């Protein structure tokens, strides 16, 4: 039965993809992109990848869409008809696609338990995680403990992206509040935003610290945290949001998260282990693993939330200063 849902969702994704090619209004395309992202997130749930689904929903349907909208708001909504006939691209695409489809014929069937992918590392991780790490969520244990180096690199990538956007767009603090013209008078929205902000932040913390036991973790929590503040900025104006979290604080937090992560690694070295070896952090190896994972997830969450907000403020504050 899951197979049926899988087939239908993939079909819908394909239709959405074609619609995105055909539409010329960029705002409409962005809406469809958001739908595409939501559908693929639903597909990830069908395919058992709950952590990925959570990330894709928060990042793809949430932040990416908002960034695209912010870009369109300060450029243009209309896509011009291309001057070239799309014959050559079409040939290239069809040839590549045919080659790739030929390549899939040798791949193991979908859902095949004997596929080579499932033979080696995965079984070991699934077997060892409850014994060595003691957390039920294998994705978290692999992400944060077994492959902690990768994740440290990941956080650095995010941090670098934040610096990159900051270098490209700068950061303009708004003294006066420019209210978005479309939703200026909506009192209901402000009340709801005020009601929801604490709930969203609390929920983000739940996702952060419950990541060991269910879907979730630092990346998702950071994005949800940032989404809460974006909602605040949307309802109450950018100036108020920037007064709530000043620029210097954001910059400090973005760096602090990476530093917390690295410090946990170095702490492990000081206590006689290797870099990012959590076992030595406490007397009991499993407790040490728990502590280490929790600390680095906290670091990841702080950096991701701060960088998301830096990027969002970078885009939106530039737009407002350009308009007025």
């Amino acid at each position, binding site marked *: 039965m899951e*197979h049926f849902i899988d087939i239908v969702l*993939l*079909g819908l994704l*394909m239709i959405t*993809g074609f619609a*995105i090619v055909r539409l010329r209004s*960029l705002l409409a395309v962005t809406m469809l992109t958001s739908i*595409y*992202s939501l559908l693929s997130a639903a597909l990830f749930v069908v*395919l*058992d*990848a709950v*952590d*990925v689904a959570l*990330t*894709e929903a928060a*990042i*793809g349907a949430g932040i*990416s869409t908002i*960034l*695209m909208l*912010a*870009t369109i708001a*300060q450029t243009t909504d209309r*896509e*011009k008809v*291309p001057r070239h006939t799309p014959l050559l691209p*079409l040939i*290239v695409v069809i040839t*590549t*696609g045919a080659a*790739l489809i030929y390549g*899939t*014929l040798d*791949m193991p*069937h*979908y*859902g*095949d*338990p004997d596929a080579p*992918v499932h033979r080696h590392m*995965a079984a070991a*991780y*699934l077997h060892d995680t409850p014994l060595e790490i003691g957390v*039920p969520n*294998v*994705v978290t244990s*692999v*992400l944060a403990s077994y*492959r902690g180096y*990768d994740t440290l690199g*990941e956080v650095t*990538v995010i941090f670098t*992206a934040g610096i990159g*956007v900051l270098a*490209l*767009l700068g950061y303009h603090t708004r003294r006066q509040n420019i209210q978005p013209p479309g939703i200026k008078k909506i009192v209901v929205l402000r009340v709801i935003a005020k009601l929801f902000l604490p709930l969203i932040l609390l929920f983000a913390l739940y996702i952060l610290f419950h990541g060991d*036991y269910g*879907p979730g973790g630092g990346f998702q929590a950071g994005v949800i945290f940032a989404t809460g503040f974006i909602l605040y900025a949307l309802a109450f104006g950018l100036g108020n949001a920037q007064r709530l979290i000043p620029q210097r604080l954001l910059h400090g937090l973005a760096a602090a998260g990476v530093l917390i992560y690295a410090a946990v690694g170095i702490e492990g070295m000081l206590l006689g282990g290797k870099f990012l070896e959590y076992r030595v952090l406490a007397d009991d190896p499993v407790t040490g693993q728990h502590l280490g994972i929790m600390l680095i997830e906290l670091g990841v969450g702080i950096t991701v939330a701060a960088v998301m907000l830096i990027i969002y403020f970078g*885009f939106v504050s530039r737009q407002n200063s350009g308009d007025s």
Partner: protein
Amino acid sequence: MSNLLGHYNYWIVIVLMMTGFYIVIARPNLIKKVIGLFIFQTSVFILFISMAKIEGGSAPIIEEGISVYSNPLPHVLILTAIVVSLATTALGLALIVRIREAYGTTNEDEIHVQDEQD
């Protein structure tokens, strides 16, 4: 028939991938190109997650009474890939904003024309 069902996911993924690829190479608008890239990336995510699925398996969160889990390793890879995709999207869009300020357009053809005039 089993071949069709066994490879259905991969084939749709390739169609999606090529849709994104087509947008990137055939459409001159830079924002549309970023969106094409986004579609391409998401289709790669689906490819990896499809490979991780085991028939009758469950989400890789250990629980009493469940013996078959889907492969957690691709999940980890894709989780980080999604975050990187956000980083690239954000940087690409920031570049587009700057290009628009410098050239007054987001259309690649017009940018080329302006470059040739200089």
